[in-house]
């Protein structure tokens, strides 16, 4: 059962890639990227999980207690979530502009730039 979060995160990444390959709607592509991002974030959080661990605050720790959680993965994940927010916002903004110009969200029809 300990590997379940890793399996889940890999499944999220796979679902996201599937969306990127099979979908043509720009919004769905953006959703695919976000799902991959969530999979990676879940992976990072799972890395930092310690069974029975406590927050690394020395005054709270009972004497002789060794199982402290290093807060680095959580900090990484928070940063990655914030970066993901900025990326998603930018992607959606581009989609809005593209829609205004073309009136469609179909990636197959928006191919001015080729070759």
């Amino acid at each position: 059962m300990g590997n379940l979060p890793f399996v889940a995160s890999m499944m999220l990444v796979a679902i996201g890639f599937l969306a990127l390959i099979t979908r043509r709607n720009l919004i769905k592509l953006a959703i695919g990227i976000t799902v991959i991002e969530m999979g990676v974030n879940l992976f990072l959080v799972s890395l930092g999980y310690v069974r029975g661990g406590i927050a690394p605050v020395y005054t709270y720790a009972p004497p002789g207690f060794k199982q402290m959680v290093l807060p680095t993965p959580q900090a990484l994940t928070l940063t990655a979530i914030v970066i993901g927010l900025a990326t998603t916002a930018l992607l959606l903004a581009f989609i809005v502009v593209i829609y205004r110009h073309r009136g469609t969200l179909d990636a197959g029809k928006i191919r001015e730039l080729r070759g």
Partner: protein
Amino acid sequence: MVHAPILAIAVPLLGAFAAPLLAKLDKRARDAWVLAAGLAVAVFGIAVAVKVLGTGTPWVYTLGAPSPGAAVTQGGFPIRIVLVVDALGAFMGIVAILAGAVGLLYGLHYLREEEGKTLGLSLLLLLWAGILGLVYTGDLFNFFVFLEITSIAACALIGYRVWESRPPEAAFKTMTMYTLGGLLVLVAVGLLYGEHGALNIAYLSKLITGSAVERLALGLLLGGLLMKAGAVPAHMWAPDAYGEAPAMATVVLVANTQASIYAIMRVVFTLFGGALARPGIGWLIASLGTVTVIVAVLMALIQRHLGRLIAYGAVSQIGYMLLAVGVAAVARGGFGEVALRGGIFHMINDAASVGLLFLVAGAIRRAVGSVDLMGLGGLGRSLRWESGFFLLGALALAGIPPLNGFASKFLIYESAFRASPILSAIAVLASILLLAVVVRAFHGTFLGPEPKEAPPSPKGMLVAMGVLALLILVLGLFPGFFLGRLVGPAAKALLAGRAAYLAAVLGG
């Protein structure tokens, strides 16, 4: 100057976020502020380079410590985030500063107020801060954060002209590729953290033994960075991005792409330079580089859009750098070091020549309103300076002897030949084809039966182009000086200097 490395990153960030506020007060105050920020960054970056190259040891700057010189490790375990600038980092800093300064100077005159000049300058400063952070950091997660800062700023600049239909499309494509590449890097960072519980590059480098997880991490890192560098087969975004981005941004985008090449060097030679120093990785990178060179040059042959034509030229130069990195990873030392010198020297040459071509294309677009080669022609008379600059940049890009491109390409050909004559032959052939491409572009733009009238470019834009043109001449006429003082130490820092890098961070 104790704090120069962090100030070189913090000043452009402050400059970027304060510029819109100042613009509310007065447009001239904003321009002065942006110039002052640019000048300060140049001073700090050069101070870092002078100190690092002068002492010959990497400069370790510890963040969050009582003093920036405090030890990184406590009981042998690194507990703080560090900036580590070795000779290669210092060199990349100089390249980034050069590109950023020229881009800013050009952008101050290129953008019009109604085109949102303030935001353009802000984004340029933000991209600059990201690149400098990327080349100065000594921490793997920090590296990811700066990578994403450059991605976001770069894509916002690529899609800058939202009133046109093509730039947002190019920006969307680029953002997708950059984000996927960034996520691959993030997974690799997570894997390495899970394996060793640390993010410090020097510390990780010492612990790496070559396990399966570490190999996976190496593959993911290389994959993500190659996507960002625009190597074939992940190059589709590059011509769109370079072709549609405003000209002042393209110079900095070139430096941004080179920062990805720098990152590949750092990963291959420093992070995985110990247990996983296998020639197979080198062959893989060298073949990818060669394929990139030839595919990009062939695509450049058929372009009609001047910006895209130069963009494919820029992609082919990335191929040359990858070829050099690959050859150096095949033979670490001996002709491998020659290859590395060629590859590193090619970065500054590429920034100068490709940057100059993009700036001229931007000037033409500003003057005539289009860069379609079918509609251009005869501009040589009215845009005299621009045509001269274009010719100089084009010949330097193709690697014609007295100019700078030749010096670095020759080192790459020579060392690639020792590794594999076929790779070298393809690289030489591509260079000849590239000459045909740029001559056609020059002919189609500036020559032609009927002279065409065009308004002259603002002085500031000409000065920015002149700086790069001068650089091409100086680098081409005195390659020995730069190879000895800047490039040689940088190449050494990667190969023989790995031990010094680890010792500087971890002590002992």
